[in-house]
């Protein structure tokens, strides 16, 4: 039983991380209708920038947690202004091609500059060791990632539901025409929202630095998992992305624990089932699918 609880906790921890990483993808799709295949590369960039800042100017984990997402936000704004804004009225296919192209370029630039073997990163102060709870033992850092991800998800949720900006953003997601008719300039929010999504990807990257390999390729397969999470949750649904993140984390943990060889396919089986049974994902608007 204690093993089961341990696996559950690990699944929730992994799920929180997926939810946070997928959040930006969901927000970007929701507001811009852009399928951002470069999200994995931006996540990678967040981790690489943290490692480089630590190495060059000695910027540690805690300040990086604030500074790197801001840098990534600015990078996102730049990306939107230079490339993505031309996509807004085009088919999803062109999104895919352009953002895929951006990802390829970013990954290779990092490879050329920082090599292929990965960059070192320290264990953040105050988060080393394990937390013990009876017979259970969890890495402190894992618990922190879970708690922090939850906090960010809740904050984003409050931002979207309790503030005027959030109302406008949500309205322009769900009823773009009517929002425009009410005299709200929807386009004004496109750039900051894209930057915000990229900032969230960067934040996930900072969180990843202490417990994952920091290499140029770290976002390659990760982005596929994130897409699965977002699709399972329902495209454009922020709540869906969070719930699906946990679902995927739990399915993965139980799969790894009880059916190891099948764990790698579990997420895709889950995705196929969800799409076939609920055409627009768990929380997408079903009638339009």
């Amino acid at each position: 039983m204690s093993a089961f609880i341990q696996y559950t906790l690990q699944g929730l921890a992994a799920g929180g991380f997926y939810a946070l990483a997928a959040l930006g993808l969901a927000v970007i799709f929701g507001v811009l209708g852009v399928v951002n295949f470069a999200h994995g590369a931006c996540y990678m960039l967040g981790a690489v920038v943290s490692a480089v800042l630590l190495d060059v100017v000695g910027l540690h984990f805690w300040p990086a947690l604030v500074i790197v997402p801001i840098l990534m936000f600015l990078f996102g704004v730049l990306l939107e202004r230079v490339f993505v804004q031309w996509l807004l009225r085009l088919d999803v296919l062109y999104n895919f091609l352009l953002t895929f192209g951006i990802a390829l370029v970013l990954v290779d630039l990092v490879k050329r500059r920082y090599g292929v073997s990965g960059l070192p990163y320290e264990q953040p102060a105050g988060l080393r060791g394990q937390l013990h709870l009876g017979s259970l033992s969890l890495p402190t850092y894992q618990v922190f990632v879970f708690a922090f991800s939850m906090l960010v998800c809740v904050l984003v949720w409050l931002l979207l539901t309790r503030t005027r900006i959030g109302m406008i953003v949500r309205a322009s997601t769900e009823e773009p025409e009517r929002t425009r008719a009410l005299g709200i300039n929807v386009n004004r929010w496109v750039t900051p929202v894209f930057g915000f999504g990229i900032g969230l990807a960067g934040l996930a990257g900072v969180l990843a630095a202490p417990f994952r390999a920091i290499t140029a390729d770290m976002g390659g397969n990760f982005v596929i998992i994130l897409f699965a999470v977002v699709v399972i949750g329902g495209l454009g649904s922020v709540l869906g992305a969070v719930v699906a993140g946990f679902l995927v984390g739990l399915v993965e943990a139980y799969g790894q624990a009880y059916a190891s060889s099948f764990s790698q396919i579990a997420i895709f089986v889950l995705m196929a089932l969800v799409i076939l049974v609920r055409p627009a994902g768990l929380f997408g608007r079903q009638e339009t699918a």
Partner: protein
Amino acid sequence: MARKTKSAAIAACMTGALVLAGCGGGGPSAGGGKISDDKVVLAVLNDQSGVYKDLSGPNSVEAVKMAVADYQKKYGDKAVASDIEVISADHQNKPDIANTKAQEMYDRQKADIILDVPTSSAALAVAGVAKQKKKLFIDVGAGTTELTGASCNKYTFHWAYDTAMLAKGAASQVKNGGKKWSLVYPDYAFGQDMNKSFTSAIKEGGGTVQQSIPTPFPNDNFATFITKAASSKPDVIGTMAAGGDLINFVKQFNQSGMRDKATLAVGLMFITDIHSLGVDQFAGTTFTDAWYWNFDKKNREWADRFKEKTDTRPSFAHAANYSAALQYLEAVQRAGTDDSDAVVGELEGKKLNDVFLRDGEVRADHNVIHDTYLAEVKKKSEVNEPWDYEKIINTIPAADAYEPVSKACSL
């Protein structure tokens, strides 16, 4: 230079438009002449842009060039191969590109031998080409025992390491006290082979394998696997993850606190892995090494020369590529020709010794065996200079370091 050869070949084809023969790439080289095309061409085909770039990649080309220089220095005017060229290509770890490039190297660039080729599927594909074209292929970078097993052929040699050798080296620590093992392996051919080899080697050594846990490949999240592996309270946890996955595993292993409770044994690790993650994260980890630059004076001298050219320390793959190129040229020298069959004849059954091969021997299955080492990663406080990361705990003599000649192989 690649382009030149190619356009010349195209020109030849165009002028002989009606005589179709020869345009698809010539047959095997003429056996009579001393040196085909008056030139010996060594081709390095490996990963120059992906995950294996640092541990082999462009620096292996440098190592091969060092071998050429040493050969020329040793024999001077008496060298059979007076004109030697080293060419290279990036197979991007894709077997189809490796396969096409290998054909092109043999046919159009007149390569007499192809070297390195990491990634097992790519190596096996190139072995097939070597067999068809009757040209030499010495693999260094791939780990599969298939190369000297069911897929072996007369023209293919396997130089530095294979999965069985890695297992035998690691299992040698059973007698140092690591009796109970849990294995975690990525669920694809390499990992499955490693798991099998490790399990039998550990049993032979008198240890037990409590669990064998397959993981996805590639994989970022090892938390649950580590918990599961630790649940049987093993002395040693063996991971067969490599590259980025290995770093993921080690970071999460350290965070889980298991480092104080069990030894971590890594199936396949290069010194470049230790360098990139930092020696502290790996401290105390054991692994099988085929060669270590700071093992003795001879290695160190070679490593110093390597550093002058590349500004870094060599991995065992670099040294093995040097050794393979050097022994090939020595065989050409003995044979007095670069004719493939004659050179193969000069390699088969030979006892070889150089900076990489200690007590080396080319076996009947073309597996080149040699002494191997069980290494432990030093603590940060024990490191005296950059790249000084390893303590050699055991030396496994060549005769015990590999599986016996495979029955599946008939040349």
